[in-house]
């Protein structure tokens, strides 16, 4: 290579990043041993010397940001979130898991429990049952509040297994909603006082328009709560309140919510013939395909990069230089598995609202 003075070198084109830097900026490259360039380049002036502005502008964000729903069922949703930084996508994920409120059973009043399951364990199991109640219609039960129709749902479980009969399984559908609140009476402080129940509902919940159409039942009818032997019985009342997943996982509205970055599989060189066949066979999820070039020539192509699970089978051993596995840094395949209280799309908008609230709070605190 002839020596060239630095002054004689061609100028770096201004206003445009060289290819390798662009790759570093926008892609995670998953090498065989470890992924590299995993972090985003945050600093707005990172490429200032090349005349490239790395700052994030609201207009450009608004222009580039896109959401494409891929799949939407009653309690599962997959959508693509494009043109956003991982920190924001992650914020939605975190809020979904920990901060979107739901209703869950918090207090259990045991009247009788002769089953093999201990009271605490039974209560714990009840708490984890997803309820079919829209938490937006309820208020938090604050410390000094008395439980009323706006913040508490009361359920009742009264099952017994006949003596001499077969064993029975108690399932979640046996929890019955009590729209009028608790039926149990507190022990009066003195004889003369009128007995009070554990809740103070001013009106029946099923008379309220929100609930009259949609009873506050269980999301799933077949969750096993306990098993009873002959002669055993459970009688209890369960009070559900509003809460967030940060406090206890039972209030988390999602089974889980997560994202993955869009996979990008690149063939750095042409792979032909037998090698192509081998490559296609290697991938367990059939990312690669074979293109017939005519005259018997075959070439490997990437047909379904999205399916890539990053098992790295294609770059194991011989192909390491031929195939590159990448992830697009600002394209997230987001999945929400709802636990049932709210449909996943509503959960996401709720999460956005919570983030909005937070931002508002920060702004108002700052100003």
């Amino acid at each position, binding site marked *: 290579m002839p020596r060239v003075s630095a002054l004689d070198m061609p100028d770096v084109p201004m206003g445009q990043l060289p290819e390798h830097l662009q790759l570093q900026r926008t892609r995670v490259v998953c090498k065989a041993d*470890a*992924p590299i360039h*995993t972090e985003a380049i945050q600093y707005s002036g990172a490429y200032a010397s090349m005349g490239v502005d790395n700052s994030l502008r609201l207009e450009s964000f608004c222009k580039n940001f896109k959401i494409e729903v891929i799949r939407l069922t009653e309690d599962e949703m997959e959508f693509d979130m494009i043109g956003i930084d991982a920190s924001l996508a992650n914020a939605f994920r*975190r809020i979904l898991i*920990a901060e979107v409120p739901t209703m869950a059973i918090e207090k259990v009043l045991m009247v009788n429990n002769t089953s093999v399951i201990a009271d605490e364990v039974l209560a*714990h199991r009840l708490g984890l049952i997803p309820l079919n109640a829209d938490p937006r219609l309820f208020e938090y039960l604050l410390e000094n509040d008395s439980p009323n129709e706006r913040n508490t749902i009361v359920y009742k479980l009264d099952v017994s297994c006949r003596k001499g009969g077969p064993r029975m399984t108690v399932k979640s559908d046996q929890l019955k909603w009590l729209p009028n609140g608790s039926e149990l009476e507190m022990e009066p402080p003195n004889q003369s006082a009128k007995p009070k129940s554990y809740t103070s509902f001013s009106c029946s919940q099923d008379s309220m328009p929100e609930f009259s159409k949609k009873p506050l039942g269980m999301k799933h009818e077949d969750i096993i709560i306990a098993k009873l032997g002959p002669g055993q019985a459970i009688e209890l009342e369960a009070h559900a309140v509003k809460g967030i*997943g940060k406090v206890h996982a039972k209030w988390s509205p999602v089974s889980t919510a*997560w994202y993955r970055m869009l996979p990008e599989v690149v063939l750095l060189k042409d792979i032909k013939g037998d090698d192509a066949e081998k490559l296609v066979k290697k991938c367990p999820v059939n990312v690669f395909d074979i293109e017939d070039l005519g005259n018997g020539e075959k070439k490997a192509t990437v047909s379904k990069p999205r399916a890539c699970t990053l*098992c790295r089978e294609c770059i194991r051993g011989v192909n390491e230089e031929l195939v590159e596995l990448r992830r697009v840094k600002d394209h997230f395949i987001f*999945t929400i598995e709802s636990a049932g209280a709210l449909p996943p799309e509503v959960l996401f908008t709720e999460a956005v609202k919570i983030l909005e609230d937070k931002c508002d709070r920060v702004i108002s605190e700052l100003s």
Partner: protein
Amino acid sequence: MGAEDDPSASLKTLAAPVKSAVDKFQLLPAFLKVRGLVKQHIDSFNYFINHDIKKIMKANDRLVCRYDPDLCLRYTNIYVEEPSVDMDFSVEKLTPHLCRLSDRTYAAPIKVDIEYTKGNQANKKPEIKRGLVIGRLPIMLRSCRCVLSGKDEAELAKLGECPLDPGGYFIVKGTEKVILIQEQLSKNRIIIDTDSKGRVTASVTSSTHETKSKTVFFIDKDKIYLQLNQFIKPIPIMVIMRAMGMESDQEIVQMVGRDPRYGTLLLPSLQECASERIYTQQQALEYLDGKVGSANSARSGNRKEGLARAILLDVFLANVPVNQGNFRPKCIYASVMLRRMMDAILNADTFDDKDYVGNKRLELSGQLISLLFEDLFKSMNSFALELLNRAYEHASRSSPLDFVHYIKQDYITNGLEKSIATGNWDVKRFKMHRKGVSQVLSRLSFIGALGSMTRISPQFEKTRKVSGPRALQPSQWGMLCPCDTPEGEACGLTKNLALMTHVTTDEEEGPLISLCHSLGVQDLALLSAEELHAPGSFLVIFNGLILGKHRQPQRFANAMRKLRRSGKIGEFVSIFVNEKQHCVYVASDGGRVCRPLVIADKGISRIKEHHMKELRDGVRSFDDFLRDGLVEYLDVNEENNALIALYEYENDKDDSEKEKDDVKRSSITHIEIEPFTILGVCAGLIPYPHHNQSPRNTYQCAMGKQAMGNIGYNQLSRADTLLYLLVYPQRPLLTTKTIELVGYDKLGGGQNATVAVMSYSGYDIEDAIVMNKSSLDRGFGRCIAMKKYTVVKETYSNGTSDAIVRSNKEKVGSNMQILDDDGIAAPGEIVRNHDVLVNKFTPRNTRDRVSRDIDYKEAPSKYKGPEGETTVIDRVILSSDTNDKLSIKFIVRHTRRPEVGDKFSSRHGQKGVCGTIVQQEDFPFSERGICPDLIMNPHGFPSRMTIGKMIELLGGKAGVSCGRFHYGSAFGEPSGHADKVEDISYTLVKHGFSYSGKDFIYSGITGYPLQAYIFMGPIYYQKLKHMVLDKMHARAKGPRVMLTRQPTEGRSRDGGLRLGEMERDCLIAYGASMMIFERLMLSSDPYQVQVCRQCGLLGYYNHKLKAAFCSMCKNGDNISTMKLPYACKLLFQELQSMNVVPRLKLTEA
């Protein structure tokens, strides 16, 4: 290797007809069905009940009055009934669970049939009495007398018993006790060894029903001596020979052997004997009479004549029987001992190894109980006789003397109960004082209970600093678990049985001896000394006794073995041809360890596929295999005559490979059933133990016993003092065959946690683990601790008793909220610290008779537990205890979720505490949205080298993705009982995971991918019993000890934290004198004293006169006030009480 890479090829190989050897695994469950894990205990106990107890009775069946020989009693039969108890003159059957709950002993009456005569009876015709109870014998669970034996699962459930419980233990006063297997050097065998001075010794520990003695020959300065406790000093061996009638030197030398080297070695001893001028038997005996110890001579009234002869007859080599004073067998035995000593001198290889398992015998509960029973039975009889004799002397004879009155049941009942309860075996007759023979059965985990059933307690005391007995012996292979031993002082001494080990029980000797004779063993009596060691002929030694010799030892051995395989003689008889010693050892004694092996003819297994098919179809049992001569038991000695192959290989293997083996296939005589059976129960839980560094497996063996989980199907109806249960136990995803065999998959001790091996947050250093809060919320690691509190309603000597009274609940703020109407706390109530459990009143006067009105004082029993925790009364049990007092037992339940500091461990000796608990959203997550349950630091791997854990992770991950439990049995890869890593990786790839198990992970905090692939998958984690809640402790101020006025010690007494000597040293070195002053006095026991400056003694302060006074000087003039530690003042006073005057000299500071 292409086959494994290519899925289609591997499918083809799978579809190909199975060429490999017969899968013999099915034999194992069949074996465990008939023999079981604790069968040795049960067998030995059954032997005691059915045979031994009768022998003991026969040996002591006659009681005769000293003054009237006609007045006598004879036992004609003895038998043990089913467990029962006398309740108010009616007999009630006992069940084990009832005994556990009501603190009873699960014991059965021992009944005898007797013939006896009564005093002052005219005809003296013996009367017959049947079914006289002489005592109660604690019954081993699942033994033949136990109500549980032969019951199926449903029947066991009715009795409140867990079908997976192995039995083999006793219930004494409500606690479950195991009699540990005791390891011992074998009795009645010649052991050639060197003593502490380096002298060659030959010793025999003789043990017969009558006597126990130890005979030692040793060489000192080329001369051979005998050492016997009855003689005051060592006796030249030739004197002994002479005394036994071997007067000719030539005969002695001939008897030892004709090899001239033996002669040379014997010469100094012969010369010594000659120099003592002892030539005849008479002279020798006279010489010996002079050497008899004083204790012996005192017993026979100082008559020394004939004593030596008696000693030679009864004590010297006591195991060799003497017929009508014929010393010949003893001479031969002694000469064999001499010969072996000479051999050892000439060739150091022939020393015996004391640690060799073949030289060991395991004493089981049956034998131990029989020792006790024999002693107690004899004592009871002599006591009865004593009473009768005394009654005969003194009695007015108003009532006829009746033996039956003097036989006291309590003797045997209490003796047995006490020994088993305390574990102290004191048998004076045999000078036996052993401690810790029985142990409480650990019910912390199911595996812990099984583990204590297979434990072998050592013969040596633990303090001895020798490495030999602690080292792993090659002969332990397959018999004792190489992994399962405690750490620390008992390391290597306490051992555990392997999975397939069986311990033999005694077998009838008579038929075997006559069988040997009819198979061509020449009797010794017919042989001359010369013929004894004729070349080519082997001595036949039966249970340590020289039977005779045989010219064709191999043929003899083969004939015996053939008889054994065809079931003509017991399956546990061992025949061992020792080429080196020119002996054939036949053994039928109890306590030998043995294990089943598949018999092979010239390397070809006798078990064929059709046999296994019959087994699978249930038409063939393990005993059929034994009976048909397909499988046999070998003990450690006989193993030396066998060539055991691990696997059976096809004969058409490549010739090249054939050559590689250094043994000929045709010489293989046996084939192992399964190689993983060399491990015991505890080590069998570990997946892939053969990939781990060996100490890790040992650690896990110790830890598996502390893991909580399920302990039995009846766990919720038990009343243990402390019980830890996991709320949601699981069976391991990566199992082993052992796990399925012992039932760990039904009574698991842990949970499958998704583990990410990465560093996180810094709270994971030093093996700490980071846990996911949401996992804990959902029930991971949740456990229940159940504690028992007992309150006894005491009755007193004056007829008064405690009263339990209904309380006035309404009182606000009282601690009686949880009491029920009967004054006892109600089940289901939440109980807090200091709450009253029983509203009890005790009478003020418990000594004198009180007429009507009993004056009571309050004595409520209060609950003491952790502050601020929700504990619940689970159950209340009312029962009568052993003294027929009402005892109220409260089972208090506490459900705990894991907290920082709780201890967890995987199954690979990798323990760690929970370092921090992190919100799920902060946890990393994988591309599939999987969030780990816990994070383990990768630094745990390099130094521990637990590759097994990594394979467990891989296998678990493959298991959850393909829906099949994977296996990881020890050494299981060749036989298909462990999945190969290669196959696991293939499964992983098929389901879209990386072959290495490492996933692409996003950080939960930043949302960006991590810069490494993370090794993640499920690992079975155990929660150990060490929990912070039980251990944390701090105090500011609190109780003090009365005597010294210093803070109390220990957590249970809310004690202070001690600033110890070394801490004090630090403070001194630092110079923090005020700090020392504060810690050692002000915060401990400050005390103000009046010191008299005059006399230096302590005075006092008179509060009435408001003046200090010195009682020594009788004035108050020179009194100073100062502060002392109270302990110091106490010391002064104690010194004064001993007439030492400590004087304080005060100066101005």
